[in-house]
């Protein structure tokens, strides 16, 4: 199956290093549903640039520290 997005992220790891933040906590702080946080973590949904900034801001990090995109070969 083709992966829906090539965007990778470290949200799961960052949640644990930020006081074991739950998916529900992150969702509430970003203003999305928990299902959307789950989908982003699992690589099933690529967030908009605005949502990506909001998520990065929750962790006090830059976009590149939270999200990644593979280099072209």
């Amino acid at each position: 199956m083709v992966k829906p997005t090539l965007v990778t992220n470290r949200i799961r790891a960052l949640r644990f290093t930020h006081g074991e933040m739950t998916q529900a906590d992150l969702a509430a702080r970003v203003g999305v549903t928990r299902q959307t946080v789950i989908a982003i973590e699992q690589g099933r949904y690529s967030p908009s640039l605005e949502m990506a900034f909001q998520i990065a801001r929750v962790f006090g990090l830059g976009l590149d520290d939270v999200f990644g995109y593979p280099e072209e070969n």
Partner: protein
Amino acid sequence: MGYEERNAWVALVVGVGALVGYVVALVSRADGAPMTEVDYQPLLIATVVIGVAVMIVATVASTILARIATGDAEPRGDQRDREIARFGERVGHAFLVVGALAAMLMAMAEWDFFWIANVLFAAFAVSAMVEGVAKVSAYRWGLPQW
């Protein structure tokens, strides 16, 4: 499962149930006679009315039950839900257009009203089902990238 995903499932199940129920009722009423002789109008109207009513009741019931079970105070939908809704509508819309075009050609060729009405109904039903499948797939496996 989120509010909008649950609604997509409800719409899909009710849509399939309505179409299957209608076809079964229609065929049993025909009882071997030509389809065009079946008094299909009351059946078709009843299917649409009951289908809409069941959809509303099922959506409300599933939402209430989910809120009671989880005490969930999450937003009902977000950007992902809107993107999935748009994707589903776009995919389903194609089938509606095909059905409408088919009905237009059938009317121009002066086909029996039975076939025109039923092609339009089938187009609505198939469009709704395809939309439901597209939405549920997007919720389960992600939106396709293109």
